[in-house]
């Protein structure tokens, strides 16, 4: 399945940015196409992924969780053991290498949970690039360890106090910085979002997750899995896992969004959740719109103002979703569901105690769905769950809730 026209996934995607950035996007697209086809670039990236990030990350059989749930065999793709503790480093290194090739000495990035900020700061330290990370004040408070890590890595963390003071506002500020400093700055966007070529490029850099997982499950079990599960904020870890399996029609895929306090509460970030029937005018609803340069589903007010979302996990607390996800949902290739904050916390506890793996709150959304599905699936079936990151950054939140 390929997008019909360049930069579009069906009707989704595109380039909705101020004119100042249009030439930069064209430059980036050209540079990326050349790099993608360049064996030297690919070899350099592969070498770093192996010798620096620690790839391939393992595919672990979750024996005790499988026995506990009494259904399908559960495997965990362990992005949590990648250097810096999450899948974000895959994309950050790829784009930082590209920025260096393009002669851009300065990087700006946004971060929600802090994992992309840490990944960017790490890649910049490794490659000798200047790094500025924008982060919402709310997220800085709930992900303090990552703020300190970024600073230790030599990055400047700039607090964003506008709007909802979370990921969406951090992206606004990063784009404003990019508009201002576009001549010497690369915007290292952290998910399959934003204007073309970002959704495609970030997916390509993350597709290593699924390529590895596919080979690993074939080696371990001799056949493909029946189901893949991953959490979806912007959607980069899920697209990274799913992409290599898209041609395998027998492999079902579920993306898990942030259900927050429940859909009916209006405090969530589940863009694909069915609308609740209510006589009163809903505070927010997911509709086709444009945010941060791309056309996709966006949680917004009836008047077209972007809604303030909620999730216990900063990384999923975002009102829009990658355009390729919107398209693959329309195509019926991927289905979407959500996990609430409460279900997520229970999943953290269960995975920690049965497998010795403390997942990030984001990743625990995928685990929560696995807990629901596994008992309903036959014992000879196979499930792969993406543990997109480790939970160390979330200890403060977990301690106050568990």
């Amino acid at each position: 399945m390929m997008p019909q026209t360049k930069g579009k996934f069906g009707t989704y995607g595109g380039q909705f940015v101020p004119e100042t950035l249009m030439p930069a996007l064209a430059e980036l697209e050209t540079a990326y196409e050349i790099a993608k086809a360049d064996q030297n670039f690919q070899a350099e990236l592969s070498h770093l992924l192996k010798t620096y990030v620690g790839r391939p990350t393992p595919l672990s059989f979750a024996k005790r969780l499988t026995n506990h749930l009494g259904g399908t065999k559960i495997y965990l793709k362990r992005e949590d053991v990648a250097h810096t503790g999450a899948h974000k480093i895959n994309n950050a290194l790829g784009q930082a290498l590209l920025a260096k090739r393009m002669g851009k000495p300065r990087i700006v990035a946004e971060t929600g949970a802090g994992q992309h900020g840490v990944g960017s700061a790490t890649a910049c330290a490794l490659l000798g690039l200047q790094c500025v990370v924008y982060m919402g004040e709310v997220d800085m408070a709930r992900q303090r360890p990552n703020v300190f890590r970024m600073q230790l890595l030599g990055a400047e963390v700039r607090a964003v106090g506008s709007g909802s003071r979370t990921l969406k506002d951090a992206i606004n500020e990063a784009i404003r910085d990019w508009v201002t400093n576009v001549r010497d700055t690369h915007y290292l966007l952290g998910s399959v979002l934003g204007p073309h070529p970002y959704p495609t490029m970030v997916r390509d850099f993350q597709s290593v997750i699924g390529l590895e997982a596919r080979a690993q499950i074939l080696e371990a079990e001799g056949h493909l899995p029946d189901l893949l599960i991953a959490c979806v904020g912007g959607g980069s870890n899920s697209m990274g896992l799913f992409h290599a399996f898209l041609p395998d029609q027998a492999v079902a895929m579920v993306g898990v969004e942030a259900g927050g306090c429940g859909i009916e509460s209006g405090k969530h970030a589940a863009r694909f959740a069915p609308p609740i029937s209510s006589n009163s005018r809903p505070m927010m609803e997911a509709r086709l719109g444009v945010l941060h340069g791309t056309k996709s589903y966006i949680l917004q007010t009836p008047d077209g103002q972007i809604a303030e979302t909620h999730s216990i996990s900063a990384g999923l607390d975002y009102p829009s979703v990658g355009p390729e996800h919107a398209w693959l949902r329309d195509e019926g290739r991927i289905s979407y569901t959500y996990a609430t904050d409460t279900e997520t916390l229970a999943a953290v506890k269960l995975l920690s105690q049965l497998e010795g793996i403390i997942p990030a709150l984001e990743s625990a959304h995928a685990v929560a769905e696995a807990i629901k599905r596994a008992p309903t699936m036959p014992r000879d079936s196979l499930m792969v769950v993406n543990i997109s990151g480790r939970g160390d950054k979330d200890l403060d939140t977990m301690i106050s809730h568990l």
Partner: protein
Amino acid sequence: MTGIDRITKAFSKGHVAFMPYAVLGYPDRQASLAVVQTLAEAGADLLELGVPFSDPLADGPTIQAATQKSLENGTTLKDCLAMTGELRQRGVNTPALLMGYINPIMAFGIAPFVAEAATVGVDGLIVPDLPPEEADELADACAKHGVALVFLLAPTSTAERIQLVVEKSQGFIYLVSLTGVTGARRDVPPDLADFVARVRAQTDKPLAIGFGIGNGEQARQVSQLANGVIVGSALVKLAAESLDNMRALAMELRAGVGK
């Protein structure tokens, strides 16, 4: 006469056009109408009326704060259309363009929005996050109602992009004077003359320059390069403080632009 005609006429008066900007619904609904009326009386040739959006990524701190306040006041795109209509009823006949982001327009419905805009007396639209490549649907609706869809160029625009924008932009071309967001700056960018010359070499359409202009002297310098001068943040800053001070600045800008 269509909106395009009215805008074209505003650039054919034999002097450089002065186009001040105000945020609709800021500091509140009634006060913003008085602000726009004051700007018209101070000698505006065109009016740029800002529609608030929750995520104005092309705007600097001043307009961010003003549009945020307007949203807190409950201003919607529908209200902005109604306010424009009310200004027309009050006798403000200056050609007016709405400046706003694409998402609220999509939420309203592109075709119904343009139809209603034309009805209430909107002459043109400026949508900063909608380059010509993505604008087909809005451009078709505007063409149907004679509403001018104005596109922007920036100092980073290549010759190919300049060609695209000068072909598509109606009424005039909005030149963003600098690489950056809206907001008054201390100096006029040194490379502005080169940028304007690059665009001028490819079109005879009117060129209006905005972003960063905040006083009469800057307006004077910029007016020597262009057919129109756009001023936003410096006026918005005063709109809530003192209508008299804002009027004084508007007149200073008007004098700087020349008449």
